[in-house]
């Protein structure tokens, strides 16, 4: 027996279905009933029920690309704020290799970077790196904060949504999995008024 339909809005503690359904993300099982643990929308696939949250915090995952702000410069690494309950670190050797350079001459406190999560350790601290296409420091633009759960909706199916926005607005848009979006207007020359 199921009590909700696909895409219904549910709240924590709401009973979604009976025993024959499987609890997915955002749900839990208690006394033979599947209940929601979040405020969000129901997603039904076969006999598995999930709740897609409307609001959430980013938890670092290996392989994600994120946008982060340099918080602190330390002896051999940078502390990075990645809009999450867990902080990120960018080790110096990820940037320089074996070379020794002064860290604050390369990236200083307040700089915003596009990074990849290389590894997440047991205390959920994210180790970040810059190896990959398009990764590095942002020069100009603004940062917009959206909920991490809405990132897939912004990107759309195979990037259809994000590509349309990019083309129509003539902006350079970079989306991080952590819910931060960088927007930079592409101007070849100043337009005549």
């Amino acid at each position, binding site marked *: 027996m199921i009590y909700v339909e696909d895409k219904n809005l549910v709240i924590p503690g709401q009973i979604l279905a009976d025993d024959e359904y499987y609890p997915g993300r955002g749900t839990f099982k208690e006394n033979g009933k599947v209940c929601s643990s*979040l405020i969000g929308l129901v997603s039904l696939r076969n006999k598995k029920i999930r709740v897609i949250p409307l609001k959430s915090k980013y938890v670092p995952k290996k392989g994600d690309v994120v946008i982060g702000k340099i918080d602190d410069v330390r002896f051999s690494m940078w502390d990075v704020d990645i809009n999450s309950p867990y902080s990120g670190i960018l080790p110096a050797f990820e940037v320089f290799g074996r070379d020794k350079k002064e860290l604050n001459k390369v990236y200083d406190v307040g700089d915003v970077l596009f990074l990849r999560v290389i590894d997440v350790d047991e205390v959920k601290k994210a180790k970040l790196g810059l190896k990959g296409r398009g990764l590095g420091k942002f020069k100009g633009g603004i940062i917009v904060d959206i909920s991490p759960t809405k990132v897939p909706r912004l990107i759309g199916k195979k990037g259809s949504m994000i590509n349309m926005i990019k083309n129509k607005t003539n902006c350079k848009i970079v989306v991080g999995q952590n819910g931060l979006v960088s927007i930079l207007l592409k101007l070849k020359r100043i337009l005549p008024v």
Partner: protein
Amino acid sequence: MSEMIREDGRKYNELRPIKIEAGVLERADGSAYLEVGGNKILVAVYGPRESYIRRLLEPNTGVIRCRYNMAPFSVDDRKRPGPDRRSSEISKITADALRPALMLENYPRSMVDIYIEVIEAEGGTRCAGITAASVALVDAGVPMKDIVVGCAAGKVNDEVVLDLSEVEDKEGQADVPIAIMPRTGEITLLQSDGDLTEEEFQKAIDLAMEGCMQVSELQKEALMKKYSTE
């Protein structure tokens, strides 16, 4: 006897008028505003966020902290600002009442902060604070088993009544505030002040449970109203 009308015209099992609104603050992760009778309460929730107090963090789960504060102008005589014995107690019992409902296993070493500000007080602020705080927690997207709800019952003029007002609390003989998880009916907070017989105590709990169920519906309505447009 149950047809008795109270000082403010309510029946023995009638709540004061309640208004709940979710997501009222821009900068907080979650927030709620609640009015019940003459009470006006604003709650802000921050987190789960990085625990900046190392001694508090738990390696396998998140922790919650709660601060209950009354504004100096919230009562008739000016209240001296800052924490006192009463507000420290309420801060603690509020955190204890909410903790069983939270599912912070996916956010180890994190911290959730709840700030309850009483702007105007008119009896039963601790229950109102718990009610508003759980709405704010849902608004923040914190995973929870259930939405905790608080309500009080008491004894006034030898009669067990629901949801005491300030006058009834001061002149009454007893006050029993409770908080429950409405889906299962589990009690997460139970206090008792004053003298009650065993039957009266049982009656007060039953009455308060009934009140909690009514308030719970209003909590759900407030959340649905806020999010159904998105």
